[in-house]
């Protein structure tokens, strides 16, 4: 699948957010978009699946202009996993994920749809939650269900808006790892917005760093996650070490590091109550 973004510009009334984004991506991979708050990561994703219309520029998927395709056909090719889930009414997990089959479903496809749903639930190891109420799940389980809903769309491109933001470290790694494996197994271009630079760097194939409305850096994680880039974009001093071929970011605080930070004598917090 080939995603071509050609000179996209987007702004909310008078405030420009994306100034000139151009991207050419071919083949299945895990691509993460990073950048400071408000730089336009969500906006860029929304331009890809037409939730927002860019002021200028076009998006092409496999050569087709995204605007020329019907919404349903677009949904067959591009899936979306939102940042938070709507939970006004109680709905079972299966029903929630089943919604994602809408672009493909016909009035007699229920059986096939259910097969796909259950396969996906098994893949993400949440099959035993199938008939549970979506509202009763933990954050990690929520995320997996949302991911399942995006996957059953059988998309070529999957967009995820901060899929790991409210997960613990085990689940962060688990979900990101699943995304990486899925991109290869199912032949999907997975585009993920992430605030956790290290997790993104560990599993992504490509990283895009946005800054000032432009793509500041793009390449492998090692190429993008450098001391200089971090300083330029986030204004943070750092050191980058290597861990199994992937960069790992260590944040520095020159005013604090190396200072004598010992506490006044008598200050402590311990598991047991001291009786001296």
């Amino acid at each position, binding site marked *: 699948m080939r995603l071509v973004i050609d000179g996209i510009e987007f702004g909310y009334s008078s405030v420009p957010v994306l100034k000139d984004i151009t991207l050419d991506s071919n083949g299945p991979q895990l691509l993460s978009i990073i950048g400071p708050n408000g730089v336009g990561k969500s906006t860029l994703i929304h331009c890809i699946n037409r939730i927002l219309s860019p002021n200028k520029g076009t998006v092409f998927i496999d050569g087709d202009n995204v605007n020329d395709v019907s919404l349903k056909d677009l949904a067959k090719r591009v899936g979306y996993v*939102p940042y938070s889930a709507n939970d*006004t009414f109680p709905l*079972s997990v299966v*029903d929630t994920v089943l919604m*994602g089959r*809408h672009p493909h479903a016909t009035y007699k496809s229920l059986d096939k749809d259910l097969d796909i749903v*259950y396969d996906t639930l098994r893949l993400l190891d949440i099959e035993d939650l199938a008939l549970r109420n979506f*509202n009763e799940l933990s954050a990690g389980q929520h995320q997996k269900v949302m991911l399942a809903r995006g996957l059953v769309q059988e998309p070529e491109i999957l967009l995820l808006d901060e899929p790991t933001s409210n997960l613990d470290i085990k689940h962060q790694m688990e979900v990101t790892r699943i995304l990486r494996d899925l991109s290869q197994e199912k032949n999907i271009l997975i585009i993920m917005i992430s605030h956790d630079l290290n997790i993104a760097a560990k599993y992504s194939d490509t990283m895009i760093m946005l800054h000032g409305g432009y793509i500041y850096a793009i390449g492998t994680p090692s190429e993008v996650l450098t001391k200089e880039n971090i300083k330029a974009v986030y204004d943070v001093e750092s050191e980058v070490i290597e861990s199994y071929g992937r960069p790992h970011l260590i944040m520095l605080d020159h005013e604090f590091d190396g200072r004598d930070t010992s506490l006044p004598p008598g200050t402590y917090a311990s598991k047991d109550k001291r009786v001296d």
Partner: protein
Amino acid sequence: MAGKEDYKSVVRKKWLFIVLCAVLIMVALVLSLSIGMYDISFFDCYRVLIEHITGNITDPYEDDIIWYTRLPISVFAVIVGAVLSLGGSVMQTMLRNPLADPYTMGVSSGALLGASLAIILGESVLPFFNDQWAKIVMAFMFSLIPVSVILLFSIKRKVTPTKVILIGIAMMYIFSAIVQLIMITSSEETLAEIYSWRVGTLALTTWETIPIPLAISIVCGILLMSHHRRINVMMAGTKSAHSMGVDPNRTLIIETALVSLMTAAVVSFTGTIGFVGLVGPHIARLFVGSETKHLIPASAVFGGLFLLLANCIARVSGEYGLPVGVISAIIGCPLFIFILIKMRRKSAWS
């Protein structure tokens, strides 16, 4: 596959509920014929029905009561209850708001305005209709004004769900203020007439008044049911619905228009009966869940049953019977409070 079978058995149970309600409606329909001011036993009702159908009427008096008075009312009660409840379920699902009902788009205030105007003017805008039909026609026309405005807007420019609701509310306020003005400056009798129209009653139903609303309701109902997947996806939120191939703006407008049309058709005959459209879907949801494919039929049959029973109670309450709108409010209200409390504990609703 084990999981899939579990799901299917759950679905079967849901349909069981729906069928059960439908059966109950049939039973209650016949039973309801024996309830009313004049005492006619159940078996006598049954006999009269059979006699009428076979053309062998023995007691014209009883025949008149049962066949021409009570039966149409009961039948219409089922239709109205089903329509309002179905409409309510669609509105609640699409707007993701448990307080939505079929009147949300200004249908009720429009209908009230139309009926009030008909009552004080004594005739309708179109001169062909007599007194009773004047009210109906006016109510129908005016109840569709808010929806028409929304449709017009949507042709010329892009209308988001928020704007749709805003226009609905704006029209509602304007109409309500005008009605308030009318009610205040009218005579006592006129005010009483307008007020009782507003509360909603089935007492004026005859076989002549059923076909039109029935036809419109069936058409709209079938259309809505055929859109069930689209409506269901709206529950996921605007962005998610969009990314699953559903245009949220267009869907909202089209389905709202269908619900409003159906509701208008029914309400112009009966007045604005409350609570069925609000509470019916909630109770149906307790039994069949929120999946639209099951919620629509479940709401419809439960709503029909509910209003039928409410009408029975209304017929025997008070000196001359009460309007069904009052009973549906009195039963519906505590039910609603109960549901609210239950929902708070169940869903992430604070």
